[in-house]
């Protein structure tokens, strides 16, 4: 995304951050896992797939791992954790399913464009900017956690 934004753009981004952060602290007060800045890009009318991006921090002293994700059927038929990888020899970008994404102790992992993402398959409806999606994340140690992802306007 562009680094150069007007003051209004920055304020909007800051607002989204604070909204996302506020909405995301739903995983139980004692959890060592914290999810921040969860978002998805708005999608064209006929798009079938989408992606949710977020950052997972592990404040605990033991590694944890994200092992599954799901969304209500009103959002998409299926959600899967995927990673986009670039082929070494051919330069092709491909996706592969990820069964277990480690979040290291006292560390964090970003799911971001071009890397890890929660892929939404067979969208039930287009993702509209300004709406939110509830995503259930399952961690090996911390268990299940419902987070809220903000749908942001494409091209912003």
């Amino acid at each position, binding site marked *: *995304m*562009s*680094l*150069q934004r007007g003051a209004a753009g920055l304020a909007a981004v800051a607002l989204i951050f604070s909204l996302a952060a506020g909405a995301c602290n739903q995983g139980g007060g004692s959890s060592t896992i914290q999810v921040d800045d969860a978002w998805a*890009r708005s*999608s*064209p*009318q*006929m*798009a*079938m*797939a*989408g*992606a949710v991006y977020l950052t997972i921090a592990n404040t605990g002293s033991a590694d944890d791992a994200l092992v599954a994700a799901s969304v209500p059927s009103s959002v998409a038929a299926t959600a899967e954790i*995927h990673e*986009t990888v*670039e*082929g070494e020899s*051919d*330069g*092709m*970008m*491909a*996706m592969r399913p990820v069964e277990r994404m480690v979040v290291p102790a006292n560390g964090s992992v970003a799911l971001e*464009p*071009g890397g890890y*993402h929660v*892929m*939404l*398959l067979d969208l039930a409806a287009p993702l509209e900017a300004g709406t939110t999606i509830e995503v259930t994340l399952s961690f090996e140690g911390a268990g299940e956690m419902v987070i809220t992802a903000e749908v942001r306007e*494409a*091209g*912003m």
Partner: protein
Amino acid sequence: MLLIAALVASCSAGQAQPQSQPTLAGVVRSQPLDVAAVSLPDAANGGTPLPMQAPDGELLLVYFGYTHCPDICPTTMSDISVALGDLPPALAERVAVAMVTVDPERDTDERLTDYMGYFFSRAHALRTTDPAELDEAARAFGVRWEVEDHEPGERYEVAHTAITYVVDDSGTVVVEWPFGFDTELMAADLELLLERSDT
């Protein structure tokens, strides 16, 4: 390589070095690709073949992708849209964006047109159901793609080259942007190329 390109661009795009010619931030080949001979049906224009050559004084951005792609393709389209939004409107309107689908099986004319129209006002939705024609177009750009084996009706993914090609009014690929290329550098490249074509 991307980082170096970015550094070079940030030096040349700034106020320093007034003597030196500004340079493009993206990848420039010593032997530029000539794609003028390629044309593909444009579903956004009733299937009329679109030559890979921008109208006079304009630029055509070409990307090979597919609409079921959740991450790379919409990120690239969104980034290009940000870059166009950074340009003065008079320059932005001289840039059109085309996606060539590498998944004509699922990307119907209607779906691809809707997808591109969502991101851009000057959009081309290039789709051929003739594998030889798609192959020929991809070869001209050096694009590779691979459709995952699947039964009819089954979900599948398509691995593909994720480069954005900037084509000028002679049908030459003047600069290429790899995935994740900075949107400000995209805008700077477009501005430079459009201003060059004015002189």
